[in-house]
């Protein structure tokens, strides 16, 4: 759906990382973890295109505290990396946005008996919070959160409040274990061989490493990808990624916006 939204709050949770809460119509609660929103930052041509962000959280204000009935909202967690996110970060309570949501295919929850392993790299953590909230209702959930340094480690307390066991690592060792999140994950898997499935979001090299791990350990694994997007609805073919059957002779392109952003790792070509 397309809707007008009002910024409720927009808080810097770590240097250059913001968490923004905005109003959304009640139907937003049907969004599946892993789905995303496309935000039109300004009603002007600069920036021109919408910017995609994972859904970090959803909710409804309790009626006791507002006069406006049950106001639903959604949240994004974003990193300021360029013009669009810079402009977003300067918005205040009461400013307006135009939103498309929920878009794409989210995570499949899978067998509740499986332990759920979430792997987030940097701001890739964003869609994993809403996912953790859903998964934690029926399953045991662990989070492996990695970043380059301690500033990239976000909202760990929020995950812990859900009962999620968290494992933090940073490339430079400024917080948690020192090293890549995938190294920490691999170590954990070597020790704990129970049934589990993986859910990963982060930079492409990390996802590729996670897919490799899933393959070696024969685990179910879903990854959430990023791509430059224009339409967000599968029309422009700007955001495609190679599907498992892709070759120059037999093209098999998938739209990250529509067929994804979440894919089972086996469905993609990882070269």
């Amino acid at each position, binding site marked *: 759906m*397309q809707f007008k939204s009002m910024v409720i709050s927009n808080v810097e949770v770590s240097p250059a990382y913001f968490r923004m809460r905005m109003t959304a119509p009640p139907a937003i609660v049907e969004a599946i973890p892993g789905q995303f929103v496309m935000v039109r930052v300004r009603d002007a*041509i*600069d920036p*021109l295109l919408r910017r995609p962000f994972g859904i970090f959280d959803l909710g409804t204000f309790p009626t006791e505290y507002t006069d406006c009935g049950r106001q639903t909202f959604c949240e994004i967690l974003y990193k300021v990396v360029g013009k669009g996110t810079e402009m977003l970060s300067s918005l205040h309570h009461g400013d307006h946005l135009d939103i498309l949501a929920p878009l794409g295919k989210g995570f499949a929850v899978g067998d509740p008996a499986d332990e759920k392993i979430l792997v987030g790299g940097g701001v890739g953590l964003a869609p994993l919070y809403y996912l953790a909230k859903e998964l934690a209702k029926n399953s045991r959930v662990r989070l492996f959160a990695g970043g380059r340094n301690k500033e990239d480690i976000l909202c760990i307390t929020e995950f812990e409040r859900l009962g999620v066991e968290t494992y933090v690592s940073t490339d430079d060792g400024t917080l948690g274990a020192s090293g890549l999140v995938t190294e920490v994950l691999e170590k954990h898997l070597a020790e704990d061989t129970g049934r589990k499935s993986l859910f990963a979001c982060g930079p492409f090299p990390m996802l590729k490493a996670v897919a490799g791990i899933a393959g070696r350990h024969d685990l179910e694994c879903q990854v959430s990808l990023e791509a*430059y997007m224009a339409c967000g609805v599968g*029309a*422009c073919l700007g955001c495609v990624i190679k599907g498992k059957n892709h070759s120059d002779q037999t*093209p098999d*392109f998938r739209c990250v916006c*529509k067929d994804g952003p979440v894919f089972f790792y086996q469905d993609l070509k990882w070269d």
Partner: protein
Amino acid sequence: MAKPDLSVEISGIKLRNPVMTASGTFGYGKEFSDYLDLEKIGAIITKGLSLRPKAGNPTPRIVETPGGMLNAIGLQNVGIDAFIGEKLPFLRTVDTPVIVNLYGNTLEEYGELAEKLDRLPEVAGLEVNISCPNVKQGGIVFGTDPNAAAEVVGLVRRSTSKPLIIKLSPNVTDVVRMADACVNAGADALSLINTLTGMAIDLQKRRPILANITGGLSGPAIKPVALRMVWQVSQAMAVPIIGIGGIMSATDALEFMLAGATAVQVGTANFLDPSAAQTIAAGIEDYLAKNGISDVKELIGALKI
């Protein structure tokens, strides 16, 4: 006042209003059906179709530029057979003319494709892309050389009796000469413009941003060039023109009509606002009503010099 008349006609294709969706920016219509009423727009122009499925270019395929965007999709498409099997059934349920945008890698492919499309009753007309700057095998040559263009147009003309629209490239010295060649070879109408060839560079990586190196520039940035070309062609000859390029609002659309366009296409705007085409059509109606204009056709070419 009575409701203003928004209908226009392009070489026999009757449109309830002049606002169509531009090829490649609106998929096969269905992708946008959650966001607007497909029966409130003038026509749907489908993604550039080829004889066989086509993979298109490697990624990145798109990048934002100041006031516009570059794309080098490379005409990825499902091919005519899958189009008929998978896309047409939905389009058949929508009471809005469907115009198929097509291209060939060779002269023969253009003809063969036009022949196949000619047999489909759901197809209201053909829009032939001789202007796509991304495919080296043909597009660029047909679109920038009047003789080559005339050859394609002539062949397609002989292959179909459906209304034949030729889509022109802006990457030429003299668009009127190209227009003239196409009309003489049998085009019923002209769409202009397709994208301007451009490039974007990533300074830090020292690489072109698009995998294809260059791409087609669309969006508000190109509107002045598009308006100028529509006006030039409309001054030079009497052929129905479909104006395209950076149309974001009803005002933009009406400016193209004043410059001589009978109808318009909305492209990049669909990405900013998936309901853009409907909003623009409604905005045109509003404008006419507010200004006491009973028929949108009064505005076609009504620019005073």
